[in-house]
């Protein structure tokens, strides 16, 4: 399949589905509060552009802050785990507990502790909790997957622990870390949205609140518009991280070989 066709097919499918949707809604006269036509959603997007962009920016910044914290925290703790088995044994169960406890159930507690007046901090914390674990778990695995003979070779040449970490363990863990980042980027967005739903009140101003708000007032087209923006945000995060992965791995990693072959 040629490169152009690779992109043309899904785009054409998307346009066809939208056209069919538009046609069906008009033909059967579906009420706008049940299912708005794509044209109505577009109109709602344009009409509420300023407030939606404001909300998009809020959700985006919460997601990015949480993701950055998850990345730094996850990698830092993974490094700690790789250096000391004792620390790993002591801390890992708690990391798992944090991961398996449904975040929706913890959010009200965080809300009370942090306070409604710092709602964005609450959102960042919740999104961080969701995004943190895949980074920790995969990076730990990667740091430990180093070739034993290469470690021996580094030792033979008198390498320090730091040199082994920076020159051998980090590059070995890079594919795992990049894979985890793709998962965590999406999870950070989900966390930001879920937290805002749980927070409920009008204190939060992200896209999730726009959806709740539009639901209350039966502005279904606006709801769809906010939903579309969320999806676009998720796709953008995933695409950027995929691009980063490709840029860093395509010259040497096995995962890239099949694509070029």
């Amino acid at each position, binding site marked *: 399949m040629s490169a152009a066709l690779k992109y043309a097919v899904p785009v054409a499918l998307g346009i066809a589905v939208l056209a069919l949707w538009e046609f069906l809604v008009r033909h059967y006269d579906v009420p706008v509060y049940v299912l708005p036509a794509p044209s109505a959603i577009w109109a709602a997007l344009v009409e509420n552009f300023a407030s939606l962009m404001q909300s998009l920016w809020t959700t985006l910044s919460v997601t990015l802050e949480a993701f950055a914290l998850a990345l730094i925290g996850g990698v830092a703790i993974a490094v700690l785990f790789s250096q000391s088995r004792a620390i790993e044994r002591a801390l890992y169960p708690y990391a798992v507990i944090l991961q398996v406890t449904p975040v929706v159930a913890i959010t009200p507690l965080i809300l009370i502790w942090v306070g409604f007046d710092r709602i964005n901090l609450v959102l960042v914390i919740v999104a961080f909790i969701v995004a943190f674990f895949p980074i920790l778990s995969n990076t730990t695995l990667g740091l430990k997957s180093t070739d034993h003979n290469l470690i*021996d070779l580094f030792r033979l040449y*008198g390498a320090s622990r730091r040199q082994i970490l920076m020159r051998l363990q980090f590059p070995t863990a*890079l594919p795992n870390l990049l894979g985890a980042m793709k998962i965590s980027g999406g999870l950070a967005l989900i966390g930001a949205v879920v937290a805002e739903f749980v927070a409920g009140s009008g204190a939060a101003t992200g896209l999730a609140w726009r959806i709740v708000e539009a639901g209350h007032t039966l502005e279904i087209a606006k709801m769809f518009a906010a939903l579309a923006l969320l999806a676009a945000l998720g796709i953008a995060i995933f695409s950027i991280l995929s691009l980063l992965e490709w840029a860093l791995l395509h*010259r040497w990693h096995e995962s890239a070989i099949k694509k070029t072959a």
Partner: protein
Amino acid sequence: MTSLLSLTGIAKTFDNGVKALGPVDLEVQQHEFLSLVGPSGCGKSTALRVIAGLLAPSAGKVEFPGGNPETAFVFQESTLMPWASALDNARLPLDLKGVARAEADMRAGRALERVGLGGFEKSFPRELSGGMKMRVSIARAIAAEPKLLLMDEPFAALDELTRQSLNDDLLKLWCEDKLTVIFVTHSVYESTYLSSRVVVMTPRPGRIAADMALAAPENRDGHYRLSPEFTTQAAKVSAALRNAMVEHA
């Protein structure tokens, strides 16, 4: 000749109780090409790791009478860093020793040229064949100009032609750099072709069953492989190996 390495009563028992090696006494002279030959699992690799200091022996002493020599290790697999180019891989020992980048690049580049990989500096391991990867591995070993080169069945996974050509290149490096090589193999022919001395080991726990000096391997080439002299020598090594197995059984 001064002795480079001296093993006294070296034995290794692993944590799981397996007696892998010894006791072994061995003196290695400078500029010897010594092959350790023996059946699989006889502790040849263990001995090599003990000499490299990568594994502590359970008993005995490893001594270097003339001081610790610069040591390099070549594994059965090429053991390259897949994210690094051939040049970056060859430069590793120099990087770890803190050699300045420009000088390290030059020396690693020269090492690659010496193993016939001039022009492949920027290639990544996945772009190279098995034989070429092994050449990068050897370039990395010689980049830091070692005195002692330890090789653990380095050519076992290669096809016959590649192996012969690497044998010849290795002998050339051994000659030019006045290297001392300890070469682990289970191939009688390879050890006979390469070595100035062959040490035959018994099955586990590995002990020295025979220690034979061969004619110096300078100027050997493909003709030597076909000569009656080679056949005689190989037969001697082969007989010693068979004896080691029988005596042990």
